[in-house]
């Protein structure tokens, strides 16, 4: 009984492979530029790339946490760039907002039913995705994750920013800017999803461990809503007249803090603001001096690493458990640098 099923499944997989190989034949001319210049040098491996290009097009389904946010658009562009480079075809899908766990699972389900060669997945909910990943495993579709993982061992690897480290990086710069003492507060975007939690914890833990004279007086959650985050930040500033720094854990949160400071008519630099992610408004705020600096990830790097490791997974290569695509401090001094500019999506 079980044997027949496995047989059937592998037949189906084989058929899918053939079909995708056939379908890919015509568009080979698109893949004219297999040159592998090092981007960040993190995970690019020349062997993987050439393998992908020779086998015709692999079909890789990427299910993201969203597609509206600029961050995800940057991930997508990185993934597309890498896909073109390796000569594979990808699809990129995501729910309208990051609260739509169900919608995202539905997308993952459709992706599995499509029988791609590999799936790249960013989990909105680390538990709800488990059964589906098991399903993918049964269908022998290799899974790589990006940005946020699912609580299983099925995935071959995960390409993401180490958010704890990123949070700690934010804490280090915050501490330096406020001379290692005083009150700070955090406007976070989620107390549930892992990036929100880790960016918060990385920051808070670092402060507690290394900076005894800094006190984190309050942590509130604005769901990444600019308006709500602004109102939260204003209340925090009112509640703590001696507040020295505010840390916003994503773009909406950080812009909320910036708006709050503007609305209160505070002078640039009166309060040290550390932001996260990128976006035009944050870049403007750094240039005008309202925001001291921000932690950026490398979303394009995430996209590239995801596609790259997906191809490696298809070809059975060993992959590290986790690929850290890195996080970087951006302030007025380096914002115009070329390598930083590459990571600042608008």
């Amino acid at each position, binding site marked *: 009984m079980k044997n027949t099923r496995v047989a059937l499944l592998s037949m189906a997989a084989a058929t899918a492979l053939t079909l995708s190989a056939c379908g890919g034949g015509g568009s080979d001319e698109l893949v004219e530029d297999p040159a592998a210049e090092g981007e960040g040098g993190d995970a690019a491996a020349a062997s993987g790339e050439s393998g992908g290009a020779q086998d015709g097009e692999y079909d890789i389904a990427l299910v993201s946490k969203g*597609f*509206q*946010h*600029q961050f995800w*658009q940057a991930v997508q562009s990185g993934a597309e760039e890498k896909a073109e480079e390796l000569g594979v075809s990808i699809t990129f899908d995501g729910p*309208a*907002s990051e609260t739509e766990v169900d919608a995202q699972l539905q997308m993952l389900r459709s992706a599995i039913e499509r029988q791609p060669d590999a799936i790249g997945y960013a989990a909105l909910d680390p538990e709800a995705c488990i059964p589906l990943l098991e399903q993918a495993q049964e269908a022998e579709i290799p899974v790589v994750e990006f940005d946020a993982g699912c609580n299983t061992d099925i995935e071959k690897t995960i390409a993401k920013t180490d958010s704890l480290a990123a949070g700690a990086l934010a804490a280090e710069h915050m501490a330096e800017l406020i001379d290692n003492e005083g009150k700070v507060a955090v406007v976070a975007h989620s*107390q549930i999803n892992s990036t929100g939690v880790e960016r918060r914890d990385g920051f808070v833990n670092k402060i507690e461990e290394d900076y005894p004279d800094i006190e984190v*007086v*309050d942590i*509130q*959650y604005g769901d990444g*809503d*600019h*308006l709500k985050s*602004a*109102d*939260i930040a*204003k*209340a*925090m500033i*009112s*509640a*703590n*007249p001696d507040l020295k720094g505010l840390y916003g854990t994503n773009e909406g949160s950080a*812009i909320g803090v910036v*708006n709050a400071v*503007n*609305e*209160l008519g505070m002078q640039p630099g009166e309060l040290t603001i550390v932001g996260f992610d990128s*976006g*035009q*408004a944050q870049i*403007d705020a750094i240039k005008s001096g309202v925001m001291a600096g921000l932690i950026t990830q490398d979303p394009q790097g995430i996209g590239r690493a995801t596609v790259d490791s997906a191809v490696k997974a298809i070809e059975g290569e060993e992959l590290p458990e986790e690929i850290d695509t890195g996080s970087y401090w951006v302030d007025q001094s380096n914002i115009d640098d070329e390598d930083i500019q590459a990571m600042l999506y608008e």
Partner: protein
Amino acid sequence: MTDTTTTDAAATSTAPTAAGPGWRQSLGQRLQQALAFGTLIALVAFFSVASPNFFTISNLSSILLATAVIGILAVGTTFVIITGGIDLSIGTGMTLCSVVTGLLLTNMGMPLVVGVLGGIAFGALLGFVNGFNVTVLGLPPFIATLAMMMMAQGLALVLSGVRPIYLSGVPGFQQIALGQLVPRIPNAVLILFGLALLLGIILTKTVLGRMTYAIGSNAEATRLSGINTRRWLLGVYALAGACTGLAGVVMASRLSSAQPQLGMGYELQAIAAVIIGGTSLMGGRGSILGTLIGALIMSVLINGLRIMAVQSEWQTVVTGIVVLVAVFADNLRKRRAEGGGPV
């Protein structure tokens, strides 16, 4: 019966400014407002004692500004709720209007006035479509506006190309919400109060307001009185839609950008404010002043809890409790007033 006599006495003695009969409020409504106002004062008093940083000019100004967007949505949708309807599309509709304003001002390079009026007019159009679906197609308001909520959300994403439209480059735009014609009071607050005053007058002193109450009290009786209820309902939805548009402009101005992914959930906050303010979901009863107080109660509560560094999740729980208590208190009062038995 007994309370009517007292109503009358109270009406003449305490509200000499109120115009002639029919447009004064009943005692019940007055009581509810007094109750809501008392709650507001009690909350302010409580937080002032609890934290020295609550009752400061800067924080009070923050509270007022935080009330503006939800407040504008709420006073507009009060009309719809008094007719016995509901409008779920105001949150995402607001976002769509802010996107429309954003596009007019950036992509099309229209003058400021056109962008602002365009956003408001587009809101009125959305409201009109809601009204059309409710009156002409006969859809229940819940369904018609639920559909509109989704369409508006989608359209906001489509029109904006799924990215924020930055408006910091539009001269004067941010002044709409954040300028201070009156020192320390952001214009958004003046807009809210000005709008509330205007809508309060429309609701209590004009034919449109009268029809709003009439339809909510008894739509069939209104129709049989020889009134074209469809036309007036269309007007009500369009008016509420225009307020949605205005809220969209104010929000975009405050954020210096149109954020197409926001908006969902704002409708429930606004509806909660309306209910706390004593407007009945069954229709026929409610006031703009009540809604304004309701919106202020919500933002004072949230701000106060934040000042006291209460965890976010508990803030939400407390808000829910306040909605429950408000509705329960209202019911209790109504039962008192009406359990008086026959005379």
